[in-house]
């Protein structure tokens, strides 16, 4: 038996790996650790990927996402930092109200995606002159340098390396978070909103968002209280720690993109099906990198589209698998794929030529040299369970 595809169980012990403030707790919880984006991260706990995935959908899962990049973008001259940030992203940021959060992407001159990120205009107490950003771990150094350079003179970047970030996700997540913060109002906090919470005398920033398709919160806190807060959440019976393995299968079932796989500099937000995240004003006005390409694709359609791919059989189709038409013509590639524990079968997403992107289209996947039948399907594979009030 030998590994034939990329594996997350690699045991290389790289001494240069960074550690999150929860590293010791992961080891105490029996996590299997792997290198990820320069960090030594838990890929799974003793429960295992499958059960962790199911636990998150049925109760609540806790994820350490402290490796992600948190930063303030602070206006230099009394202006709204949303205006300079809009030079780099296609979302409507200026109209974002205090305490509201939005998903967007840094685009390049060709309309490709440099990274995707969450932008929050913080609640009033945190300052009206700033935006709170969360970017991908693997891209954070590049993102921060890019913003510092491009926005120099108008907005400055303040890294928040002294803060940890955890996500609590699942149908029991809001109740668990409200219990630990002793604040029932958190259970009715709107989707994609920010609230403040106090724990051990420190202020935490809670956003009702996540990366699993489930209801839940992402909680930013000073590193000094990270372990204590995490232990308090894990003490709630419904909450179990979840590793990167289940995080990946959860987001894949939810149809959410993983940067570097489903989106990258070679894919536009239009091809990726992210037009919903582009503000209406911005579609007309442009003024972000690659606007001409993106506006043209919105008007005329993109040549290829990100779609869900459901293998008809039981064999998972993983990243890199070629997608062809029923007549054998190459029409695209799988960008993420595996087994969907809640879906109960193999699930994948990838890009196909626009004329094969309609749900229900029959395609072929070349898995280990054999053509396997599959079907283009609408995303997500598992319906989103966000809090809608």
């Amino acid at each position, binding site marked *: *038996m030998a*590994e*034939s595809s990329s594996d997350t169980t690699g045991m290389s012990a790289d001494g240069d790996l960074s550690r999150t403030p929860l590293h010791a707790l992961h080891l105490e919880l029996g996590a299997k650790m792997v290198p990820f984006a320069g960090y030594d991260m838990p890929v799974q706990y003793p429960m295992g990927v499958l059960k962790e995935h199911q636990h998150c959908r049925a109760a609540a899962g806790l994820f350490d996402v402290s490796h992600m990049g948190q930063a303030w973008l602070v206006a230099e001259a009394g202006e709204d930092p949303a205006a300079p940030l809009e030079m780099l992203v296609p979302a409507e940021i200026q109209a974002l109200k205090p305490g509201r959060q939005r998903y967007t992407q840094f685009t390049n001159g060709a309309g490709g995606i440099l990274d995707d990120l969450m932008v929050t205009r913080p609640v009033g107490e945190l300052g009206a002159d700033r935006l709170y950003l969360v970017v991908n771990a693997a891209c954070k150094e590049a993102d921060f340098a890019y913003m510092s350079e491009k926005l120099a003179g108008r907005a400055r970047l303040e890294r928040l390396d002294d803060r940890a970030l955890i996500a609590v996700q699942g149908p029991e997540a809001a109740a668990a978070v409200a219990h630990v913060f002793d604040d029932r109002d958190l259970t009715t906090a709107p989707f994609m909103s920010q609230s403040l919470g106090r724990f051990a005398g420190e202020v935490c920033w809670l956003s009702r968002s996540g990366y699993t398709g489930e209801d839940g919160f992402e909680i930013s806190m000073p590193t000094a209280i990270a372990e204590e807060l995490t232990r308090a959440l894990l003490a709630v019976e419904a909450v179990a720690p979840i590793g990167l393995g289940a995080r990946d299968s959860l987001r894949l079932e939810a149809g959410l993109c993983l940067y570097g796989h489903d989106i990258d500099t070679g894919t536009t937000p239009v091809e990726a099906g992210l037009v919903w995240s582009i503000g209406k004003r911005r579609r007309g006005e442009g003024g972000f990198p690659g606007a001409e390409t993106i506006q043209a694709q919105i008007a005329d359609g993109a040549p290829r589209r990100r779609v869900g791919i459901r293998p008809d059989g*039981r064999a998972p189709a993983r990243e890199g698998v070629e997608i062809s038409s029923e007549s054998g013509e190459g029409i695209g590639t799988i960008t993420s794929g595996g*087994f969907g524990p809640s879906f109960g079968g193999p699930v994948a997403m990838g890009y196909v030529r626009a004329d094969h992107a309609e749900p229900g289209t029959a395609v072929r996947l070349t898995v280990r040299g054999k053509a396997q039948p599959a079907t283009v399907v609408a995303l997500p594979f598992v319906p989103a369970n966000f809090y809608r009030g």
Partner: protein
Amino acid sequence: MSKTYYSEDHEWIEVEGDIGTIGVTNFAQEQLGDVVFVELPEVGDSLDQGGEAGVVESVKAASEVYAPVSGEVTEVNDDLADNPGMVNDEPEDGAWFFKLKLSDPAELDDLMDAAAYKKFCKDQA
């Protein structure tokens, strides 16, 4: 009287007469994690020692299963197709993959016995 041998690729083969029953070891299933798909050879397939005999996929990755010795496939465990999780639950028992009529029993000399395999795993961990 049967005897069980182990390969460096973490397959086991239990030999009785000229028939070998093949599966993956407990060490292998622990490394794989939750198994979600198994692809087996077909009855009548002629396999060479070290040649690809099947695939086992976990939530994490796909791994090939190799024939620890040469021979002709006489039987496959169809239960695995519907219940791949058996590989995690009973890897060295109910979750056998296929049976093979050995074409060259001398190839068994290339494999390890239980004690040697145990040491091999310890060195890998």
